[in-house]
């Protein structure tokens, strides 16, 4: 007989009359790793929020170990043994690792109100050992890397004696090595009998790690089954509901010979060293680098957020050293930053307000500086329909209500409104589903076709190979190699990034 730890029976949920989960029934076997995939808005988060006690469900039945289970807040979910590791980590950066583990459950000395710090420390060491973290329990979390923080969250889940651990997109901010480490630990949790629910857009990871796969689309379960019944192509078509033949849209333009941006021996102590490259009009130049390779820092130097110590940046034949973002924008450079939540968007402002931000000065009277609102509104409407941003009302809806893909379109849109001649995009498809990825690539292709130059920074080799004309590889703050389209090769690019083979 099969042993189910969790059973969703005909769960329905709607928000303000809009159904987000329709008749969802899934049985999850104890001790399995379940990969949960679907496009943004498919209902993954809602389903997991129900499980984690963040939102209640409308109708249906939820069974945990065969018993009725309806958590009314996150705390009761935790007590029931369900740990939810959110995409944005919920650690207190000002407190020590030990305090983070026990913040809601401090052991006291006897019955006194005083904390038993020795016990907290010893216990924390045990849990840290379980996730292979060799750190002092007293280190404050702000000193840890994103990967280490993720593992502290896992240790916290273990300390709460969780039997089901939910991971929501855990690898988006991890380096390749940290990801491997996390997978090794998930594997170990698996062996020790924990049930894991793993949500990700990175299908390759799902394929590697999951035992079973659940695919959601538009609030319905499309398919549940063991991993062997799926390949990546099948996952994509089931998720999207139509056949996406090519994930990467065709390019119909070619780069020109005209250099628009050039870096000459650009250096900044401790950050980047001797960077040389040139970017041509109509070119889509990929920059591949793992996290901590200096790729985002290079982008910041080009855009003028950070300054360089030596070397030159030449823009359109003119010196462009020691600039500021304000001057860069005037020179029509655009920079889609890596963190759309923190750096790219004003989350509580409307779509229209976000879109208008960069280009606002172009829509103001020359002397009075009063905004010509109607002209701006027309431009905003145009860009919303051009990029097909899915929003009911761009002038009313806040950005934080949009899905990840649509948020990213808003970030790109606000720069497109300024007609950039150089566009720097840093991880534009992170945390974005397959369908929206395709749209974002098409948008970037269109910009390039119109003669702009794009510097496309990414840690996903496949997408760079799929869309770029040329790829430069960065590591330890240096350019380690450069590949022409004809020589694109996944293994060689990775080897270059890791400095293996040859060097």
């Amino acid at each position, binding site marked *: 007989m099969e042993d189910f730890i969790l059973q969703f029976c005909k769960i329905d949920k709607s928000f303000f009359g809009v159904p987000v989960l329709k008749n969802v029934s899934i049985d999850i076997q104890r001790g399995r790793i379940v990969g949960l995939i679907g496009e943004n808005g498919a209902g993954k988060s809602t389903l997991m929020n129900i499980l984690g006690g963040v939102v209640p469900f409308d109708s249906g039945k939820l069974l945990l170990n065969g018993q009725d289970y309806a958590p009314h807040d*996150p705390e009761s979910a935790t007590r029931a043994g369900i740990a939810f590791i959110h995409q944005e980590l919920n650690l207190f950066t000002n407190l020590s690792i030990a305090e983070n583990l026990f913040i*809601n459950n401090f052991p006291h000395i006897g019955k006194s109100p*005083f904390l038993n710090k020795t016990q907290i420390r010893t216990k924390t060491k045990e849990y840290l050992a379980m996730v292979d973290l060799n750190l002092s329990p007293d280190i404050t979390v702000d000193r840890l890397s994103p990967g280490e923080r993720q593992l502290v969250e896992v240790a916290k889940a273990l300390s709460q004696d969780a039997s089901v651990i939910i991971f929501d997109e855990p690898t988006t901010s991890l380096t390749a090595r940290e990801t491997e480490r996390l997978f090794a630990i998930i594997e170990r949790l698996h062996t020790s009998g924990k049930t894991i629910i793993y949500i990700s857009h990175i299908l390759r990871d799902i394929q590697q790690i999951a035992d079973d796969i659940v695919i959601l689309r538009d609030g319905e379960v499309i398919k549940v089954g063991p991993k062997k019944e799926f390949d990546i192509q099948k996952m994509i078509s089931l998720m999207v509901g139509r056949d996406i033949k090519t994930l990467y849209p065709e390019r119909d333009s070619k780069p020109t010979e005209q250099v628009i941006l050039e870096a000459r021996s650009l250096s900044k102590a401790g950050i980047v*060293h001797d960077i040389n490259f040139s970017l041509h009009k109509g070119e889509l130049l990929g920059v591949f680098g793992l996290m901590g390779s200096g790729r985002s820092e290079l982008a910041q130097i080009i855009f003028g957020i950070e300054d360089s110590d030596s070397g030159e940046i030449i823009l359109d034949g003119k010196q462009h050293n020691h600039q500021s973002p304000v001057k860069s924008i005037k020179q029509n450079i655009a920079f889609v930053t890596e963190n759309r939540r923190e750096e790219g968007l004003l989350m509580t402002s409307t779509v229209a307000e976000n879109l208008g931000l960069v280009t606002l000065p172009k829509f103001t009277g020359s002397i009075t500086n009063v905004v010509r609102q109607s002209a701006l509104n027309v431009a905003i409407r145009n860009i919303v329909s051009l990029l097909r941003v899915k929003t009911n009302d761009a002038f009313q809806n806040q950005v934080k209500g949009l899905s990840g893909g649509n948020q990213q379109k808003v970030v790109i849109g606000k720069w497109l409104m300024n007609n950039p001649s150089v566009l720097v995009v840093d991880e534009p498809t992170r945390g974005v589903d397959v369908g929206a990825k395709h749209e974002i690539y098409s948008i970037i292709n269109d910009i390039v076709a119109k003669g702009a130059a794009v510097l496309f920074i990414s840690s996903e080799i496949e997408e760079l190979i799929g869309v770029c004309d040329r790829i430069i590889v960065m590591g*330890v703050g240096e350019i380690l190699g450069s590949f022409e389209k004809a020589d694109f090769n996944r293994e060689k690019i990775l080897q270059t990034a890791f400095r293996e083979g040859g060097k």
Partner: protein
Amino acid sequence: MNGNQSRQRLTLAVLKNTPTILFVVIFVAFSLLDQRFFTWTNFENIISSSAFVGILAVGMTFVLLTGGIDLSVGANMYISGGILAIMLEQGYPLWLAILAALVSGTLIGLVNAFLISKVKIIPFMVTLGTLTAGRGLALLITQSRAINVTKEMPFAAAHVLGIPLPIAVFAAVVFVAFIVLAYTAPGRQIYAMGNDPEAAKKAGLNVTRLTMFAYIACGFCAALATVIALSQQGRLSASFGEGVEFRAIAAAVLGGTSLFGGVGAVFPGTVIGTLLVQMISTGLVYLQVDLYLQDMISPLVIFFAVFVDAQRMGLIKRLERRNIRVEKTAGQVLSEKKAHSMI
């Protein structure tokens, strides 16, 4: 380790201990400028007169740690002081009058706490409101009369175990607050909540109760500060407690408590900050700076210190950022070349 790194470490050490260093520098400067400053009587005097601001600042530290602010402590002092003075005037026993003052101060804290954590109005507006309304209420209670309490409250010069009473009370408050913040669950949870209120809710912390606790503690401290201040000043006037919120906030912030919540400590932080604030005003008296100028100079010095504080936080962040690559020094390159040529 190369010279560059050790210099960076030194800079970091200096920046992280700025309050203490500032304290020593100002202390030495005043001592050099006026020899009377550097005497035991003067130290005692400084600590003694800083006691009530210090108690206020300890309460303020709780509130600032949650990410809030309490502007109403001065008005709270005037109300509690008014009740205390009138009760003494009418012949109630001292203990009862003090108890009434402490209860009224705590109740004002409760009003703030309720409006902030239940009605969910932002702390700045709530306490600005209770500041204005509170002073009005106190004027109503006292009819803006000046009340003399020297006779009824003779204990300003009393000693406990050889320590002047105001200093002993201040020390006790600091001790209790330190233990609560560092060694009890609510204390640590206040830090967590100040760092990230959303995450605190998700972690199942009772954010409402923690917020209430902080504002009530701040109200209680304001009342306790009232008792000390009134006994020292001997007289309740219409300007009692006016402007003390600035000194209390400045003391906490100078001691390293962040206005954004989650960062700070009562000891040594707030204590040093308090002494610093008091030392500056006492020093200016010694230097015989014009009385009217004094009121302008001490805020200026405090502003300067807070400005330095903001600068240093930015600098600490930059210095602590992880470098991507380790730059080789010229010496290392040379020795590597040598090693290479030897092969």
